[in-house]
C-alpha cells in the first residue's frame, strides 16, 4: 500500500523511473540475445522435430508473456478502479501495446512452427492457438477504447472495466475453445536442457517489457504535462 501511494505522485514516479526505464530495456534485449544464442548454438537439435523446434525458444516465452502482460493490466486496472490511481491507469495503457505485440509475435511464430510440424499454417483444432487469437482481439479492443474516448479520465475508466470484463471471460473462452477443439497438442515434454533457454528468453522478455512499459509511461506523463503547459500558455495569451 505504501508503495502504491508513493507512486501516485507522477513527479516521484518520473524521478524514480528515469534510469530503470532504459536499464531494463537494454538488459532485456541483451538477455534475449544470450538466450537466442544458447537456443541456436548450444542446445542440440530436437530428437523428433529437428532444428524447427528451436523456434520454441522465442515462441513459448512469448505465449507466457502474452498472459503475464494481461494479468499485469488486470492488476493495474483493479488498482485504478479501487483507488483512482492515475499512474496505474498509465501503466495499464502503456503495457497494452507490448502485450498485443508479444501476442501477435507468439501467433506468428506458432504458425511458422506449425507448418513443418502439423503441415498447416493454422490449426483451428488447437485450443491454445485459438484462445491466444481471441486474447489478441481483446488487446486490440482495449487499445481501441483508449483511442475512442474523448477525455483521458473516461477512457481510463472504460478501459479498466473492459480489461476486468476480459479477465473474467478469457478463462471461459479458453475452456469453450478447448471443448471445440478436436486436435489436442499436449505440452511439449521438453527435457530440462531443452527448457532452460526458454527461461532465459522469458527473463529477457520480462525485463524488456518492464523497460518499454516504463518508457511508454514516461512518454505518456510527459505528454500530459506538455498538454497542460500548452493550455496554460494559451490561457495566458488569450
Amino acid at each position, binding site marked *: 500500500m505504501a508503495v502504491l501511494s508513493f507512486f501516485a505522485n507522477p513527479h516521484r514516479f518520473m524521478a524514480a523511473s528515469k534510469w530503470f526505464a532504459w536499464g531494463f530495456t537494454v538488459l532485456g534485449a541483451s538477455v534475449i540475445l544470450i538466450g537466442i544464442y544458447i537456443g541456436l548454438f548450444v542446445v542440440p537439435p530436437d530428437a523428433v522435430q529437428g532444428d524447427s523446434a528451436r523456434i520454441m525458444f522465442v515462441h513459448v516465452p512469448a505465449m507466457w508473456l502474452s498472459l503475464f502482460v494481461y494479468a499485469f493490466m488486470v492488476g493495474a486496472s483493479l488498482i485504478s*478502479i479501487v483507488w483512482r490511481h492515475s499512474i496505474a491507469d498509465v501503466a495499464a495503457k502503456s503495457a497494452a501495446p507490448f502485450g498485443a505485440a508479444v501476442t501477435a509475435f507468439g501467433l506468428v511464430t506458432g504458425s511458422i512452427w506449425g507448418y513443418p510440424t502439423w503441415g498447416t499454417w493454422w490449426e483451428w483444432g488447437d485450443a491454445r492457438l485459438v484462445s491466444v487469437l*481471441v486474447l489478441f*482481439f*481483446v488487446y*486490440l*479492443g482495449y487499445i*481501441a*477504447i483508449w483511442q*475512442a*474516448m*474523448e477525455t483521458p*479520465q*473516461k477512457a481510463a*475508466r*472504460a478501459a479498466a*472495466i*473492459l480489461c*476486468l*470484463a*476480459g479477465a*473474467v*471471460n478469457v478463462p*471461459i*473462452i479458453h475452456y*469453450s*475453445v478447448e*471443448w*471445440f477443439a478436436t486436435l489436442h497438442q499436449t505440452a511439449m515434454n521438453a527435457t530440462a536442457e531443452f527448457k532452460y533457454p526458454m527461461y532465459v528468453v522469458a527473463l529477457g522478455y520480462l525485463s524488456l517489457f518492464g523497460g518499454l512499459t516504463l518508457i511508454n509511461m514516461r512518454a505518456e506523463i510527459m505528454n500530459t504535462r506538455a498538454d497542460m503547459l500548452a493550455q496554460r500558455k494559451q490561457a495566458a495569451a488569450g
Partner: protein
Amino acid sequence: MSGSFSVFTRELKLAWSGGGGAALPVGFFAAACSITPFAVGSGIENLKVAGPGVMWIALALASLLPMERLFQADLEDGTLDAYAGSGIGMEGIALAKTLAHWIATGIPLAIIAPVLWIMLQGPPEASLFVIGFSLIGSAAFFFFGSIGAALAAGMRRGGLLIALVTLPLYVPTMIFGAAGLYAVASGAEWAAPLMLTGAAALFGIATSSFAAAMALRTAID
C-alpha cells in the same frame, strides 16, 4: 425493484412503438441468411454444411445491431441522468433495458429463425430446437453486448468499437450454439450444447449488468 420494472415497461413500449426500430435486426437477419446461398453455393449439400453456422453468425451480428443505440439515446437526451438520480441503481437499469430490448428484438429473431433454417435446408422437424437455441443464444448475445454498448455509449461512432470489444465475449456462445444447431440438423446428441449455451447466457445475464452499470456511471459523470 418496482423502479426497475417501470424502466422495463417504459423501454418495452418505446421499443415497440419506435417506428419499427426493433424490427430492423430481424430484417438484417433474414437478409443475411438469404444471401448465404449466393456465396456458399445453392446446392443442398453445401447449405447443409454451411447453413447452421452461417445462421448462427447472422444471429450474433443481428443481435449486435441494436447495441449502438441501447444506451446512447438515453444518454444523449438526459434520460440516463434522470434514472441515475432516481435511486434505482444503475445495475437494475442496465438489466431492465437490456431485457426489454431482448424481448422486443431477440424474441422476433428467434421466431423467424425456423423459416430461415428451412430455407437453408435444415430439417423442418428440428424447428422447435432452432427456436430454443435462438432464444437462449440471442439472450447471451444481447447481455454480453450490453457491456460493449455501455462502454461505447458516450462515443459518436461507437458501433465498430462495440463489435471489436464484444465479439471476443461471443466466442463461447458461438461455439456451443452452432454446435447445437449442427447437432439437431444431423440428429446427434443436442443436450450438452443446449445446456452449455444456456450456461453462457446465464453467465452473461448474471455478470453483464454490473460491468455495464460501471461503464454507464462513468459515461454520465
